[in-house]
Structures are given as structure tokens and as C-alpha cells.
């Protein structure tokens, strides 16, 4: 009952987030009635995900057969939930898929493509004017921090490479590497030439 209560709360929160993307629910409707069993190996927990036009239903038990079963350790499932590239996590060796994997891949694609309209949700609570002011301020702060961080990064790299000479500069390193590549290729050519010459001088080969 406790696990069911926990799942109900997670489901409620998850569906509110899904509603922030206007395309997510119509896309989930295509998967209506499909049952995905998630079998966590360590720790051993099983839950069922049933997509529908109202969002996702999470269940601790489901009497109908699952269309697709995903077996994976908890670490992979957390990675799957948080990762931007969900498809690559699904293809990792510790993840096992059984049944119609298309259902799971489609669900993963929907979750991956989520573009959440936080401003709309915020405007329901704060009103449009306050939301505009707040999000405008938040956006300018975010831009300032992004620019500040990029500038700091650039200055630090320049200081370390050009002024203090602690690190080798990128262009200098590239020039040195290309020089080394050239020497390596020259050596390989020389080695090949030596081999050809030695073969032509070998009497057993001429016979």
C-alpha cells in the first residue's frame, strides 16, 4: 500500500510535468493500453508503466500481460530517467528488453523530446504580468551567468596558455601534433621502402 501511495504521488507529479508539453499527451495516446513492465534487478522491484491519453499510469501490479519488459539494475534505470540520450542507455549491455521493444523506444523518444513550458505553469500561480517579470529577470540572469562563465573560461585558458605558459596552447599543440603525425607518416613510408628494398635484395625471393 505504501509503495502504491508512493507511485500514485510520482504519477501525479510526472503527469503534471507531461502536461507542460503540448505534444506529449497526443503522442502518448498512440501507446494507449500498452503495458511496459520495468523489472529492476538490484534492488528487486517491479513496476508497470501504462501510457495513455491522460499521461502515464504507474502500477505496482498489473493483471494483464506486459507488451514489453525492461530488465536492468537500478543504476541503469536512473541513467535512463535522467539521460538526454535514452536510446543509447537502452542499448547498453546491462539492459535487457523482452517483447515489443518498439513500445519502450517510442515512450523513451517522447520523454526525450519533452519541451516543457514552465512559464505557462508559473503563470497559473503568479499571473501573466508577474510571470513575465520574473521569467524575464530569470532569463537575463541566466544569460549573464552563461556569458560570464564563457568569458571566465576563455580568460583562464588564455592566461594558462599564453601568459603563464603553464599549459600548451591549443594551436601550438595542434601544430606540434601535426608535425608528429607527419614524422610518423614519413617513418612509415621509410620503413615500407626499406622492406621493399630488402625483399628485392633477398636471393630466395628472386629465385
Amino acid at each position: 500500500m505504501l509503495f502504491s501511495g508512493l507511485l500514485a504521488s510520482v504519477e501525479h507529479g510526472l503527469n503534471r510535468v507531461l502536461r507542460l508539453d503540448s505534444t506529449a499527451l497526443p503522442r502518448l495516446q498512440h501507446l494507449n493500453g500498452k503495458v511496459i513492465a520495468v523489472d529492476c534487478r538490484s534492488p528487486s522491484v517491479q513496476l508497470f508503466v501504462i501510457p495513455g491519453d491522460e499521461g502515464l499510469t504507474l502500477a505496482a501490479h498489473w493483471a494483464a500481460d506486459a507488451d514489453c519488459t525492461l530488465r536492468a539494475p537500478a543504476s541503469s534505470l536512473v541513467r535512463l530517467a535522467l539521460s538526454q540520450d535514452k536510446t543509447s542507455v537502452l542499448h547498453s549491455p546491462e539492459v535487457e528488453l523482452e517483447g515489443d521493444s518498439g513500445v519502450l523506444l517510442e515512450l523513451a523518444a517522447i520523454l526525450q523530446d519533452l519541451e516543457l513550458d514552465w512559464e505557462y505553469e508559473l503563470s497559473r500561480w503568479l499571473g501573466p504580468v508577474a510571470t513575465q517579470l520574473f521569467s524575464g529577470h530569470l532569463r537575463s540572469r541566466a544569460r549573464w551567468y552563461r556569458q560570464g562563465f564563457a568569458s571566465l573560461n576563455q580568460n583562464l585558458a588564455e592566461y594558462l596558455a599564453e601568459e603563464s605558459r603553464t599549459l600548451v596552447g591549443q594551436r601550438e599543440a595542434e601544430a606540434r601534433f601535426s608535425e608528429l603525425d607527419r614524422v610518423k607518416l614519413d617513418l612509415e613510408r621509410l620503413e615500407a621502402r626499406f622492406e621493399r628494398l630488402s625483399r628485392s635484395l633477398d636471393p630466395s625471393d628472386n629465385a
Partner: protein
Amino acid sequence: MTDQRKGSDAEPTTHFGFKNVPESQKAEKVAEVFHSVAAKYDLMNDVLSGGMHRLWKRFTIELSGVRPGNRVLDIAGGTGDLTRKFSHLVGPTGQVVLADINASMLKVGRDRLLDKGVAGNIEFVQADAEKLPFPDNHFDVVTIAFGLRNVTHKEDALRSMLRVLKPGGRLLVLEFSKPTNALMSKVYDAYSFAFMPLAGKLITNDSESYRYLAESIRMHPNQETLKSMMVEAGFDRVTYHNMTAGIVALHRGIKP
């Protein structure tokens, strides 16, 4: 704990809470109770169960195994909690019938579902669980949540549900039952007979209906008795799951 039916000329009686009333009056009296509480039924459910009724219904849906295209009958569906979820699960190719003997409850349920935009695959039918007006072998799943204890002849209702189910179809009975723990039982008794009528008085200005609720729960068959009643009615593989220490039990039977 079956209904009492006398063999003499006198009209048989049945229980209405702790009282005995003529069988012909029980449905009317139950209807009065639900007519009185219909408007605030959901609020009272949340207050009295602390929101637990949502988890009990959730478990019922999980064990129903409903799939797209299924036909589901929700008897005593009241305000349509189960119907709403079933409607999404069966999709446009399926059908859900919300049946209730009480017109007030059915109206509240229908209005509530329509207000939430749930429509298209739902039918609303005022029907008596003992004489279901549906063809034989018609439904994949039949549910009755917190309704069986109000039915006058439970055996007749179970047989009627068996008739309308397809072979292999499932009946799910969600109902108050007997707590499995002695301490819990004492706490639950105190809660039911002291707090429930008081909350009924404060919220719906009707303490009698909630006294009836507490009494009818005590008069309802316990887990094992209901299981044997389902077996006698003809259900196969009957199992039950106790929830919240047996305060509520979910019985499931399959039509052979």
C-alpha cells in the same frame, strides 16, 4: 452472514445496518441514504478514509487487467472513480457501463465525468445488481466497489454478475471487511461509531447515514464468507487481498 429469508407467509426480513427491515424496504432505505449523501460523497470518502479509498480503487484497477477494447461493467459505480480510469484504459474501441441503482448517485457520477470530458465510450444505466439488464456473457470485467453490502440478496447479485460475464471474465468486489488485527479492530470500531457519524453531521448534516455506513460494514460478510459465497455462485479461482489490515478486502473471481 447471508440475508435472512423466512419460510413462513410473513415477509422475509434483511438487515439494514443493525436493524432488521422487510426485504422490500431495504433498497428504498439504502436509496434514501445515498440520496442524502450523493452531493458530498467524494468529499466524505476523502475525509473518512484519509484519501485511502483512492489507493484501494487504484489496486482494484491494477488487478482488473483491463485492456483496450474490453467491455467493463462498474456496478454501484457511484461518482464514477473507477469508470473514469476504465474509460481511458479500454479506449475508443471498448465500452464502460456505469450502473447504479440510485438515480442521485448516477446523476452526480454522470455530471462529474462529463465535466471532466470523459465521454464517448461510457453508458449510464440505472440498474439493480440482482437483476442486471444485460445479455449473458457480455462483459470482460465486472467491478462492484463499496456496493455489495447494500444489496439485499447478495447471492442473487453474485449470480447475476456471473451471468453477464464472459467465460474467463473477472469479477472484482471491493468492500469493507473485517480487520485482521485485534488492536486495529478496536481502534477501527471506535473510529467508525464515534468519528464517522460526527463527521457526517458536520459535513453533510446527516449523522444517521454514516451510522448506517458503520453498521452495514459490521453486518457485511467477512473475507472468507464472501469468498465462499463467490465460489457457491459459480466463480472459479476466487482469491482476496486484504488492504489496510483487512479494513477493506478485494475479492477476485473468474467465470469458468
